[in-house]
């Protein structure tokens, strides 16, 4: 498959996943703020930290009010990680891959884009997106995923889509856990209060993990939540699930057997899988969750770069001299 095309499919998928996660963060935070007691400060700045754009936000907005944060994350074209920017980029990549993806997939992403564009137009006239809007974004992302799954051959191109999505998702789960954990843990005095439970439940909700978590562990506890979101093998937003599945796609593309590697991407990803296969949650907490998650993000970036080098950036080869001769005009 053409390198540039694989590149487009990978990023198309990553950007849709990114938009979905941003919608998810905002939705849960809105929901959470409804439960907070009077006088409790609403927390909107952590949302900016989850996408790592604090400096950019500070440059354009005076304070992290709910309104400002939502605007920045939803329709602000200056923010490359806003829902609008992400979906625009996803569609641009889909256009580049239009001859390859199915009509249904293209129409789905095009509709997604037109809906967001329409939202942006309304927002410039004062519309403030609410829960309906964010749940529409999540649904559109799921519809995109489903269309891709159901209409496209599960071939090399499909595996590139899946790879992009899973790496993006692993990264976002690690970031949301990192931010929330850092924010929630210091409030020792609230341990055991109903708010503690609600806050942690919100972390699970923001990854759509609450119901699945309850089925596995019932009681809410920070360590269990870390275990579930990092190490669960079956929950599709858990980091472990994401990297193991991504490894499957990477090997489906190269044809190399699992537990071997034929390029640096497979090597880095294989190592990360191996670590998550055998580590226990106690070790993670002892090492420091923040350090651990930070390390995961760094390693996911390394995998991303290695994928880029192995598949998309085939080095140009100069024209051999004997074929340069003979041009006659």
């Amino acid at each position, binding site marked *: 498959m053409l390198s*540039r095309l694989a590149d487009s499919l990978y990023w198309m998928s990553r950007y849709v996943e990114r938009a979905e996660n941003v919608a998810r963060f905002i939705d849960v935070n809105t929901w959470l703020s409804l439960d907070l007691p009077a006088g409790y400060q609403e927390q909107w700045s952590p949302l900016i930290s989850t996408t790592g754009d604090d400096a950019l936000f500070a440059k354009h907005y005076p304070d992290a009010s709910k309104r400002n944060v939502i605007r920045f994350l939803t329709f602000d074209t200056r923010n490359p990680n806003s829902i609008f920017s992400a979906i625009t980029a996803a569609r641009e990549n889909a256009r580049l891959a*239009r001859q390859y993806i199915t009509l249904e997939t293209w129409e789905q992403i095009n509709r997604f884009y037109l809906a967001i564009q329409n939202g942006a137009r309304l927002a410039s006239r004062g519309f403030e997106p609410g829960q309906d809007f964010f749940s529409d974004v999540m649904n559109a992302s799921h519809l995109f995923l489903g269309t891709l799954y159901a209409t496209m051959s599960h071939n*090399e191109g499909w595996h590139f889509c899946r790879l992009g999505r899973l790496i993006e998702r692993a990264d976002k789960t690690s970031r949301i856990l990192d931010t929330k954990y850092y924010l929630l843990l210091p409030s020792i005095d609230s341990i055991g209060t109903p708010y503690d439970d609600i806050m942690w439940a919100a972390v699970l909700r923001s990854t759509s993990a609450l119901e699945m978590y309850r089925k596995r562990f019932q009681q809410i506890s920070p360590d269990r939540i870390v275990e579930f979101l990092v190490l669960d093998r079956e929950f599709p937003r858990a980091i472990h699930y994401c990297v193991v599945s991504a490894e499957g796609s990477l090997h489906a593309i190269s044809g190399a057997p699992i537990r071997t590697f034929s390029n640096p991407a497979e090597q880095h990803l294989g190592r990360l899988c191996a670590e998550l296969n055998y580590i226990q949650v106690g070790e993670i907490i002892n090492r420091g969750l923040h350090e651990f998650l930070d390390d995961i993000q760094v390693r996911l970036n390394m995998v991303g770069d290695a994928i880029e080098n192995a598949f998309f950036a*085939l080095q140009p080869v100069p*024209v051999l001299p004997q074929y*340069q001769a003979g041009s006659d005009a």
Partner: protein
Amino acid sequence: MGEYNRVLDEGVREQVARGAFFMPFDGYDTGGFYDEMFEADGSPRASARLLFERISSVGDTELRRYQQAAEQALFRMGITFNVYGDEAGTEKIFPFDIIPRIVPAEEWTQIDRGLRQRVHALNLFIDDIYHDQKILNDGVIPRYLIFSAKSFRKACLGLKPPRGTWCHITGTDLVRHNDGKYYILEDNLRCPSGVSYVLENREIMKRTFPQIFDRSNVRPVGDYPSHLLRMLQKIAPAGIADPTVAVLTPGIHNSAYFEHSFLAKFMGVELVEGRDLVVMNGYVMMRTTKGFQRVDVIYRRVDDDFLDPLTFRADSMLGVPGLMDVYRHGRVALANAPGTGIADDKVIYAYVPEIIKYYLGDDAILPNVPTHVCWDDAERLHVIENLDKFVVKAANESGGYGMLVGPQSTAEQRDNFKAAITAHPRNYIAQPTLALSRVPVIVDDHLEGRHVDLRPYILYGEEIFVLPGGLTRVALKKDSLVVNSSQGGGSKDTWVLSC
């Protein structure tokens, strides 16, 4: 105002319920032009009677609803083009009108024969120009006209494209004049675009207005990609059983990008940009996830000038360095072959009837528009004295640019053209202003006549194939004669009838 609209809506609903429609054709005026749907006395032509009855029975409210549905479908399907110079992210649909244009079967038979003859002769002409130049030696065309043509490619002299075919894909522009006859306006032998709209327009019509096709005997156009692919595979270098075909596009910002990806998609072949290709060890290769892979046939939608910076324009970023050398060695096929533009020069166009006579011994089945060539002193004087009556065109421009429409021009514009013609007579031709035929289009709640042309598509691999259909471009501005999309033109589904 709201009250007014409500009352109006109810009035319409009531009338629809009673079966009393507004007739969309009420008050339709052919304006003294040849109308593709109506006779001069206002009665529908025999070939259009069924269509006329269907549209009349729908009523204007429904008709407008179908028109809106079609436009929405175009947006949803993302069949849009980028608007240059407009704010970022502005996309527009190519305007589409749902009233089809009909070409009766017997007229098509003649068009089909005429196009086969013309493409056959033009191909022999191009091959001759780049080899023996018999037609120049015999004095049928002055040698100087060839060597002074901007589109003449010295680098193509002596080239032997597979099977001797140069113009694999042609999109000839036809117009119909008040006398009811079709004339050839342009040949378009380089990278004619628009065929994707022929297919999409039909698709949209089937989605939004399916009942109109019932018993209409419209010839299908959907097999074009299969014909195109078969032709491209046929021209592959000898000895390759399963050739790799690719469409070469200038990229996503080109206004025809939709078409490039559309054709690649429906042929199931790769869509590549120059940066995806590289010349290695004497072959053209593309960069894939599994390393470099050989490409055998390239349907290039990049102009000659930009194909290969080592042979043509050195500043081209769109092409592939070394491509022409591989081509010269017969290790890759290009469609169309470089150099075909020579027959697109508007001065050479004037000689096409002689070209047909010279190579085939026959008279042209489809006539040219009478053309004055300004390099000839007598003709130039005649043109300059009558500038207000002629359409003057630059020999090597397209898209409606570099043109003077005499009857609608100002004295200043005529002065400018006079100076330009006198300075560079070789660069200009003049033609009488044609009264292009008209078709009905939806304007608000009724139908009005607008001028159209017709661009059929011709493929030439082993044999010649003419797609039974074409792009009908329509000048949507009232009284305008310019159908180009860059100048406010739209399109229609074109129905070639089988009987």
